[in-house]
């Protein structure tokens, strides 16, 4: 069910989510330099998966944040999704106490630190499943929320009926889906070492480590303590419908072609490219196929917009 392309007056903004993988410092610097000239409107920065990854220190993030802001982007600092150690809590506090940039809270610890003090964004891992939950968090300072990836367009429409004025809704529109977090590092496990001796092996997998079934069907992707879908979730067909209520479409960075993905989404929202055409090229950036089942109330791995699987 492809919907018509909306006029520019209602067009959604595009955001770039935090890099979910472990890339070397130079690659990250190059990546964000290349983002400065893209039509993406909002950039989320920060390590959200594993606090052991240290390609970027705090000052590196802030430098990139300032550069992107100078390039006209709205910049948001994202917090870690799974907190275990006390030191991790300390860094989340440091982010939450910054007064330069808005913070995306990815766990309730961050919400607790931000609530009543400053406005904040609620990330997709916060479990905002209904308008009552959203409204409670709005009362504490939330101004934008990212819908949990397993919710559908019907759910979003349900939220819209009770949406507090001025609150923005963001959906995960391109990328491998974050499906689970664990205490255990599965990349280290694949290398047969415990997490404490990981030697940062995830840096060898810039788009995660593929996990296939015993029939060699690409199934999941291991990214340290995070598990993702192997298929890339794509909503290029869908959310330009103002009725769907998505104010912002999130593109999740991948090691190659992210600029082109942004450009294709931008052309579709501007009405200069048909979604079907964009989708054909986008599929070539998804070696393990495309999915959009969650958006259609189906199994997340399903593909309902006619995209093929390899």
């Amino acid at each position, binding site marked *: 069910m492809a919907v018509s392309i909306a006029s520019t007056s209602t067009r959604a903004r595009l955001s770039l989510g935090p890099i979910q993988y472990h890339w070397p410092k130079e690659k990250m610097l190059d990546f964000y330099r290349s983002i400065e000239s893209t039509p993406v409107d909002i950039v989320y920065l920060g390590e959200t998966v594993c606090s052991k990854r240290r390609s970027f220190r705090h000052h590196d993030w802030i430098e990139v944040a300032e550069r992107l802001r100078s390039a006209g982007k709205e910049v948001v600092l994202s917090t870690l999704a*799974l*907190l*275990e150690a*006390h030191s991790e*809590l300390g860094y989340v506090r440091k982010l939450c106490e910054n007064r330069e940039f808005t913070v995306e809270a990815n*766990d*309730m*610890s961050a*919400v*607790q*630190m931000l*609530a009543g003090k400053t406005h904040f964004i609620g990330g997709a*891992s916060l*479990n*905002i*499943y*209904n*308008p*009552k*939950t959203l*409204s*409670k968090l709005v009362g504490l300072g939330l101004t934008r929320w990212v819908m949990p*990836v*397993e*919710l559908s367009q*019907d*759910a979003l429409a*349900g939220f819209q009926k009770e949406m507090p004025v001025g609150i923005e809704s963001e959906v995960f529109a391109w990328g491998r*889906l974050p*499906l*689970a*977090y*664990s*205490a*255990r590092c*599965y990349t280290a*496990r*694949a290398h047969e070492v*415990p997490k*404490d001796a990981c030697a940062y092996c995830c840096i060898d997998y810039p788009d995660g*480590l*593929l*996990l*296939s*079934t*015993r*029939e*060699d*069907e690409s*199934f*999941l992707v*291991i990214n340290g303590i995070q*598990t993702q*879908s192997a298929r890339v979730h794509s909503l290029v067909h869908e959310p330009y419908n103002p009725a769907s209520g998505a104010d912002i479409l999130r593109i999740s960075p991948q090691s190659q072609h992210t600029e082109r993905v942004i450009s294709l989404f931008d052309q579709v929202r501007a009405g200069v490219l048909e979604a079907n055409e964009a989708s054909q090229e986008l599929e070539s950036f998804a070696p393990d196929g495309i999915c959009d*089942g969650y958006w259609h*109330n189906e*199994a*997340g*791995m*399903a593909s309902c917009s006619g995209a093929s699987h390899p």
Partner: protein
Amino acid sequence: MELVCPAGNLPSLKAAVDNGADAVYIGFKNETNARHFAGLNFDSKQIEQGLAYARNHNTKVYVAINTYPKPGNFAKWEGAVDQAAEYGVDALILADIGVMDYAAERWPELRLHLSVQGSATSHEAVRFYAEQFGVKRAVLPRVLSVTQVAALVDVSPIPVEVFGFGSLCVMVEGRCYLSSYVTGQGPNTFGACSPASFVRWSEKDSTLETRLNGVLIDRVNKDENAGYPTVCKGRFRVNGKTGYAIEQPTSLNTLPILPDLLRIGVAAIKIEGRQRSPAYVAKVTGVMRAALDACIRDPENFLPDQAWLAQLTSLSEGVQTTLGAYQREWQ
């Protein structure tokens, strides 16, 4: 340290009570709780009988309403809260902020616990629920080491409950979409992981294949035991090697660290398994009761009895147990 035991039905509730549970936890017959399985859980009449039985034996009853309502569904969760409150149960175990907000406003006297499905892994997250909704106890996800649990308990504004025995979720509870990715139904909104309606067992040559909505989760020789096809316990290929890439079929068992849990101030220990049989509940409750009593009597010299360990292992997934994330090496 309170022993909190699972009751998927009235016979299990009685088994838990008879074998030394300090509290039992139950759910209603719908998707408002995280064990929404066919034939399981309590209707009104069964709840009344269960409450009466538990009260006669000085055992508390907690009701799990620990899934997440989607837009348009909220009334069902409100109904569950109201029903449990009207029965005068000892506490509700909740996960969703909206449901908690409703319960705290509508039933201010009712005791609330934060479910493991609420994914609170730090004292700041726990503090959020304590301050906003007056939550009195938090159940921690199975992701922290013993040292990390101790650090959290030290500064937590409210008492903490941890898992002591049972099937092991290796992903942070409340944030795992593996089941919904494969089937469209998962713990958060449907109340079940890898629902049975999507499971297929098929024989092929000399092997048995288990599939979840068509995805091959494992393949075993006919003489091997095939585990239930939850995604995280399957065998897959990674970097050219085939094996349990996430975790083997195994159960959590904390008997070896009971004195540590006691020493660091854990307030309650929970047994997983509302989907298990009354016989299972009776045996596990009995062993855990004996172990806890021995541990409380003399924590310095506590050593788990070999017979207890053997009994728990025989009841475990894959007939093996683990300390899971409590033990740093497991991570």
